């Protein structure tokens, strides 16, 4: 497909993004992880630390464990996401919007308290196992070892697949399906051969995010006390007091390389294939009515999945009303005292969280659209580097980013003399960088599904490139942009690791920090859970609102034109 040569505007855009990534991702991280390449004692360049990595049985074991867990988590997450996505987009399904909203809730799992809630339900002595043991005399090890990590990660991250796949399915042109039906294809064959392949960009965007995220995630393995995986190994080394060992940073480098490699592989899988369809406005796939029997089955499947993936939130809700909950299927008694305690002091946290997450989410979709456009629609040299650099953010532990910011920007002073690193905007930038990959993948997948012929048509009719972008490309990408904003916004709202390093005072602190402060003592567990419930509710409401708002503006635009 012939592509127009790059214009000055594109070059300026690319340069701006490159400078942003350089200033707030590459340089700060480099100031921290360059230790991986220096020799002990002399400080000169060396690769000996990587040789040490390969020689260490623990690291090799951790590496393969991480690969295994990440792959299996993708499989399990797909099993959760596929039925939900297919049923809600392909069939007339009352409650589809609700299911979609509930389906992304697992992504918002407040730190610490979410894990406590999960242990209380699924743990060795959680509600389910206590009941099973009482009634049937056996337990199911949901949360043990690597399989436990896979289970929890799949529950936590399957919304990535759900959101991106649903957006992709809605984008498929009905004409494709009708053509296949006319040629005699139907049922599962139709889904397998036509519908699913056309939604592939969305699925791959979600699946690769799940893989990389699980590969790089340290919170869940640590909460389940699984230490022989790569990300926890890096974290444990980077953060132990007084140990000045380069291996933590060596592992960080390995994480970055694997993550970028995985993204590259998924890009390779899509290469030389065209997922774009030309015709628009058909309103996506035809929705079929379910027969009563099918309907019952479908609801059964949906409810089972929702029960499983929302159980942590139910646990969280119970915990926030519980007096004492210890070694019992349900709390001993209930109270609203925890909410009374947090409501007074949490309004500042709530306000900060909304501002930070909304700003970060907006920055992310703007950059996500821009990078996707540059990669897919221009021939700029080195455009892929932007994509990979942005994705590498997934692999960088938040703590490393936080330390890098302090190191790079603490000496820079604002006019009033306070360090730039302690300015609240830096928290927003850190959140935006950490969540950019989510928005980027969503926007990228959305743009992949749009045929360039539409843009060419607009330009042939005399529209300028920016007008084409504004009036043709962006509206067609809306689904992907919303998906990207929602994931970035909602996950930024509960992010802790980088913020813990950058928060300078209670007045600047987001909810996750408030949660952390509560969750360090026995008496703080209830209030912490209450704050967690508030966070989840808040993000859910905002997400629903942004869905509604954008859909409404779409509709009014459609009516006007």
């Amino acid at each position, binding site marked *: 497909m012939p592509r127009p040569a790059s214009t000055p505007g594109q070059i300026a855009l690319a340069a701006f993004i490159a400078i942003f990534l350089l200033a707030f991702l590459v340089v700060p991280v480099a100031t921290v992880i360059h230790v991986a390449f220096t*020799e*002990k*004692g*002399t400080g000169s360049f060396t690769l*000996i*630390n990587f040789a*040490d990595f390969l020689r*260490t*049985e*623990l690291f090799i074991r951790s590496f393969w464990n991480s690969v295994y867990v990440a792959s299996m988590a993708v499989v399990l997450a797909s099993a959760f996401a596929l039925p939900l996505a297919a049923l809600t987009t392909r069939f007339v399904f009352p409650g589809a919007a609700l299911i979609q909203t509930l389906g992304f809730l697992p992504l918002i799992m407040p730190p610490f308290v979410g894990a*406590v809630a999960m242990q*209380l339900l699924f*743990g060795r*002595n*959680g509600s389910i196992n206590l009941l099973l043991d009482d009634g049937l005399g056996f337990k199911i090890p949901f949360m043990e070892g690597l399989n436990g990590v896979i289970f929890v990660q799949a529950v936590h991250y399957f919304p990535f697949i759900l959101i991106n796949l649903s957006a992709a399915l809605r984008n498929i042109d009905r004409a494709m399906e009708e053509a296949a039906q006319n040629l005699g294809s139907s049922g599962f064959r139709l889904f397998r051969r036509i519908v699913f392949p056309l939604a592939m960009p969305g699925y791959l965007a979600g699946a690769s995010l799940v893989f990389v995220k699980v590969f790089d995630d340290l919170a869940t393995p640590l909460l389940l*006390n699984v*230490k*022989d995986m790569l990300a*926890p190994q890096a974290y*444990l080394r980077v*953060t*132990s*007091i*007084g*140990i000045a*060992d380069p291996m933590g940073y060596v592992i960080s480098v390995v994480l970055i390389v694997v993550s970028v490699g995985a993204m590259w592989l998924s890009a390779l899988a899509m290469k030389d294939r065209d997922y774009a369809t030309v015709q628009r406005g058909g309103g996506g796939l035809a929705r079929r009515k379910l027969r009563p029997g099918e309907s019952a089955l479908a609801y059964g499947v949906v409810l089972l999945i929702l029960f499983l993936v929302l159980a942590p939130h139910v646990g969280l809700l119970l915990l926030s009303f519980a*007096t*004492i*909950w*210890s*070694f*019992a299927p349900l709390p001993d008694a209930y109270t609203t005292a925890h909410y009374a305690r947090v409501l007074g002091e949490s309004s500042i946290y709530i*306000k900060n969280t909304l*501002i930070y997450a909304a700003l970060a989410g907006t920055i992310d979709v703007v950059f996500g659209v821009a990078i996707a456009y540059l990669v897919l629609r221009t021939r700029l040299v080195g455009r892929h580097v932007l994509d990979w650099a942005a994705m590498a953010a997934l692999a960088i532990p938040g*703590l490393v980013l936080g*330390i890098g910011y*302090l*190191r790079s920007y*603490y*000496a820079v002073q604002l006019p*009033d*003399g*306070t*360090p730039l*690193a302690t300015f*609240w905007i830096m928290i927003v930038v850190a959140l935006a960088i950490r969540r950019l990959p989510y928005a980027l993948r969503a926007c990228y997948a959305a743009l992949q599904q749009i045929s360039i012929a539409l843009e060419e048509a607009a330009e042939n009719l005399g529209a300028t490139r920016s007008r084409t972008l504004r009036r043709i490309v962006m509206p067609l990408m809306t689904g992907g942009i919303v998906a990207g904003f929602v994931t970035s916004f909602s996950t930024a709202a509960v992010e802790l690791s980088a913020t*813990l*390093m950058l*928060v300078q*005072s*209670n007045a600047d602190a987001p909810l996750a*920090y408030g949660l952390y*402060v*509560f*969750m*360090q*003592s*026995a*008496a*703080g567990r209830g209030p912490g859970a209450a704050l967690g419930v508030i966070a989840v509710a808040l993000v859910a409401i905002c997400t629903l609102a942004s869905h509604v708002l954008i859909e409404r503006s779409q509709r009014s635009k459609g009516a006007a034109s």
Partner: protein
Amino acid sequence: MIIRRTLVITLATLALSSTVALSQAPSGKVTVVTSFAKDVTDPIKKAFEKATPGVTLDVQNRNTNAGVKFLEETRANNQVDLFWASAPDAFEVLKGKKLLQAYKVKAVGIPEKVGAYPINDRDGFYFGFAASGYGIMWNERYARANRLPDPREWQDLTKPVFHDHVSIAAPSRSGTTHLTIEAILQGEGWEKGWRVVKEMAGNFRQITERSFGVPEAVNSGQVGVGIVIDFFAFSAQASGFPVKFVYPSVTTIVPANIGIVASAPNRAGAEAFVEFLLSPTGQEVLLEPSIRRLPVNPAVYAKAPADYPNPFTDARLGSLLPFDAELSETRTAVVDTLFDQLISFQLDALKAATKSIQDVEAALAKKDNAAARKLIADARDLIAAMPIDAAGAAAAETRGAFTGAKEKGARQAEFEQQWASFARERYAQAKQKADEAAKLAR
């Protein structure tokens, strides 16, 4: 928001300039970085602000590691007045990096030592404000359901009945757990001490990376028994959780500390807070149910509830072993890394070998067999074997590998790989011997 922010900044600048003007009267904002929970800091903040009008305490919560890193990274333009945390080793690190400044405390009535541990840093860089001891905490409901006896001593936790029921924080992550392990090593000697630690570890359910992970798991009944610092158990009891706690006879009472950060912006305020914390009023706040720490001023115990442990009078807590802080300091990193490499990262193998040994011993108790006994003794020795002796652990060249020393030398990664394979081989051999013994004992 912007307007309010500017206002705050202006106020802070004003406050700052006024402190410079009258450096003696504390005023303005005192910034403290702490690892303590809100439940601990809130009552103290309230009492301090009441006792010192015109001063506000700004509490920044960070875990100990992040706090140390933060002070290190921001030293060029330090905005923090105080560092306030449990682990003495974090303060040692800060002192070593010259991030603390010395101060002479005026408060009276605080003895030199609690148990065997000096309350204050000998050079006056940090001060103990509350004592805590390590011990064993357990969940009563869990214990009843699993028929666990009440533990009294560390050795009790090596018994087969506790297999897979015990939890601990990794000493490399928790300064206070580190001191517990060190106390066992000093109390029992290097070889014997590690033997006890590894026999206990064979029963571990999990090794958490946060100190609070252990009491959290015990409180919610996910794990039966936890090796924790006392106030975690006391404050859990005060909140109503069905947990109990005991101090074993080999433990060490350690002070939790506060120190003034080097070039603190509000030095007068920082000093005022230290003095408040060590005054009788400040010490009494520690008795509150949500805090429950042991004051370092013995006179304050007069106001404590009847069953409150008192390290200054309690015979059990008073007769504790002497603790050689200097020895502990020289080998901190080595002990932590040994624990990680021999125990944390080999836990499955260690547990499997231990379980086999415990099963054979149970069989032998019913029907004895001398050959099997010999094999089991060998297996236990294999598990207890150490890749490095006490002298080697404290040797300069070993230490140099862990401290990021400037001179060239062995790398930490090399030691780690050596020690890990040492342990892995021996745990496998021990399992093999135990399996052989199992055939004989059948």
